[in-house]
């Protein structure tokens, strides 16, 4: 009865509050290692579409470029004009094979193309050429790492069902002013690889970690830029829940997710939504939902109850794609027409997880540090150059690189290759620190100074700004004396026996000397002076 009296706004407010309470409840209860919280098993599967990095499109010779005047990168094939035929791009095939090898897939040496029919304004030909029956690669696995808390990292696997080559569709924009839909076919025909994963994941965090790892792999291989915000990597999540021991529940598909972080939120929201409905005795409908990042909720998009019939048929204009390896390679074939799996495998660059393991073993850094190093483009090279040129141990270097250097990069919104500080500068600062010429506080100041003024060396800055360590014992004693005289209360506290207060005095000396004193030396001097004072007092 009460519900009827509430206005729409109140209901919405209540919904939001319930959602926020549930979120807090969920966070406190979420077990990252397991898929159940005792009552429900969560099942999450991902379908990832990655745009291939190539100069021309998959089946036509038009250019691939992100921002270009509308319909300027469209050939007659992309515009679906009759009398045109698709011709497969070799680079795209190699890209698909590289990706498949990186995730341990079995390459199908013979794969075929199919047509997937559906009507939509941005698909003028009415079908998409894809690989439905016999894709280019099957049965792989993606190894990723789930970060739990700040220090703990759990290795995980997700099985990959298949990888296939397909075409992208055009883009449609809704013009509200004239209430019409405008179509730009620049994107139509660009090569995509679809990576279908098995439903092995159970929460948003796992999906996010898997997608981030996939992005890193794609970027390392050079197959795709993997930028979710630019639409180069599109992820659709299939989510369902069921009681332990029962068969899988009805699943819903969530689309329109444009960052890894939103992916985690969308999945968690959808899981909660489904659990709530089922616990209240409702039924989940097989539908497609869109994620609205502003409200953090998934909203209904279209009904999938009546299963969309894509009327798959073999693409008659394309014979099967044959891929060779060293054993099956025929001798009389044109090398430009050959995609050789073994050759591509030899050319594969060092994959991210191998690189991380090598960094940890070689430099003795923590696993989380290796993650941070890999996440910034060029940071690994920077770190390795600094370690080479400095006497400081890698464990010390890593702290400076990850905390101070990266902080400066983030503050100024720069990438590693745009940084005004070179590895030589960094290593010079660390050498000065190792040799005891400056304190770590001064070192930070030098770093900031060098950031602002290119062209100076660290030693020059230290001299100019007088940041060198005060080694003169007399001067030190003078400073300590001043501080002791200025702080009689603290001194009396110490003389009563509360030695911890000496830290405050050390701090004062540091402040007075602008961080140019070594704390241990200061403490020793202060202790000596106070001891002398004590003795004087006793003698009095």
């Amino acid at each position: 009865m009460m519900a009827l009296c509430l206005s729409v706004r109140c209901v919405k407010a209540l919904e939001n509050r319930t959602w926020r309470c549930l979120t807090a409840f969920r966070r406190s209860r979420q077990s990252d290692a397991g898929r159940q919280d005792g009552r429900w098993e969560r099942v999450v599967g991902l379908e990832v579409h990655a745009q291939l990095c190539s100069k021309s499109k998959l089946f036509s010779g038009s250019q691939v470029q992100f921002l270009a005047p509308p319909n300027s990168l469209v050939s007659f094939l992309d515009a679906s004009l009759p009398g045109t035929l698709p011709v497969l791009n070799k680079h795209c095939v190699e890209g698909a094979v590289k990706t498949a090898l990186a995730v341990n897939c079995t390459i199908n040496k013979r794969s075929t193309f199919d047509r997937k029919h559906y009507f939509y304004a941005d698909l003028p030909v009415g079908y998409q050429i894809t690989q439905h029956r016999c894709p280019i690669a099957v049965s792989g696995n993606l190894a990723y790492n789930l970060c739990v808390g700040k220090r703990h990292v759990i290795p995980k696997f997700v099985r990959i069902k298949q990888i296939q080559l397909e075409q992208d569709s055009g883009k449609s924009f809704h013009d509200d002013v004239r209430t019409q839909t405008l179509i730009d076919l620049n994107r139509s025909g660009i090569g995509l690889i679809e990576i279908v994963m098995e439903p092995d994941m159970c929460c948003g965090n796992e999906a996010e970690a898997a997608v981030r790892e996939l992005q890193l792999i794609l970027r390392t291989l050079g197959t795709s830029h993997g930028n979710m915000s630019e639409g180069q990597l599109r992820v659709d999540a299939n989510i369902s829940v069921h009681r332990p021991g029962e068969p899988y529940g009805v699943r819903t598909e969530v689309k329109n997710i444009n960052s890894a972080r939103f992916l985690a939120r969308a999945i968690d929201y959808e899981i909660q939504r489904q659990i709530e409905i089922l616990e209240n005795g409702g039924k989940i409908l097989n539908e497609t939902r869109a994620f609205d990042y502003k409200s953090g909720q998934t909203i209904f998009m279209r009904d999938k109850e009546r299963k969309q019939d894509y009327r798959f048929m073999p693409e008659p204009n394309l014979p099967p794609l044959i891929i060779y390896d060293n054993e099956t390679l025929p001798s009389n074939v044109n090398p430009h027409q050959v995609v050789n799996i073994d050759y591509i495998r030899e050319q594969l660059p060092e994959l991210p997880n191998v690189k991380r393991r090598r960094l940890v073993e070689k430099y003795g850094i923590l696993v989380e540090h290796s993650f941070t190093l890999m996440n910034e483009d060029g940071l690994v090279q920077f770190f390795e150059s600094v370690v080479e040129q400095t006497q400081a141990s890698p464990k010390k270097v890593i702290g400076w690189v990850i905390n101070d250097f990266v902080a400066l990069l983030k503050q100024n919104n720069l990438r590693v290759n745009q940084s005004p500080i070179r590895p030589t500068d960094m290593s010079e600062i660390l050498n000065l620190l190792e040799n005891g010429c400056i304190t770590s506080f001064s070192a930070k100041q030098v770093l900031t100074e060098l950031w602002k003024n290119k062209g100076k060396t660290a030693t020059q800055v230290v001299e100019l700004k007088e940041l060198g360590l005060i080694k003169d014992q007399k001067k030190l004693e003078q400073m300590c004396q001043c501080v002791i005289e200025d702080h009689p209360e603290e001194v009396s506290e110490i003389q009563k026996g509360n030695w911890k207060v000496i830290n405050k005095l050390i701090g004062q000396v540091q402040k007075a000397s602008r961080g140019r004193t070594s704390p241990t030396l200061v403490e020793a001097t202060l202790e000596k002076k106070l001891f002398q004072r004590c003795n004087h007092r006793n003698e009095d």
Partner: protein
Amino acid sequence: MPGCGPSVARCRCQRGGFLSAPRLVGLPEERGRPTATWRMGRCPDGGGARWGTRVPKTPTWTLTEHNQSPEVSMEMIDHLECLALVDFRNQEGVQRLASAIQFANQLHVVDTEEVEPMDSVLENRPLYLRADEVTDGDCTEAVLSNARQAVEEYFVAPPEVRGDLACRILH
């Protein structure tokens, strides 16, 4: 077509001749088997050559009766209409559909046990792989010239058959 008989198919071969389909001229014996000859007739602009063919004069197969009438329900019609955007909503349409399905169902009589389906006669030809170079595109005017309506170099899509606002979020 001017200058041709009533039952002649025009051949689009580059030699500029035409095939006279039903007029079988002569039956030269070849290896003991009768073959039909398709003669290239003369076109006003020249050409002409003789072709041989192994297509038999009389059919080697017989028609089998396949009387089972297919079940065509209203749900199926709705579904097919949605997919193919064709209007079946009259009795004539339903009957035509039923007879079309019946005609096609004759294929089920053929025994295809343990036979790999053939997608294309090109299945033993190698698939040509193109080098990754930009050789096309940059013809906005030509591409837009076919559009019924264009706005600032965008195509204007026709009004949606199934209005689905949420679909637009995708793109």
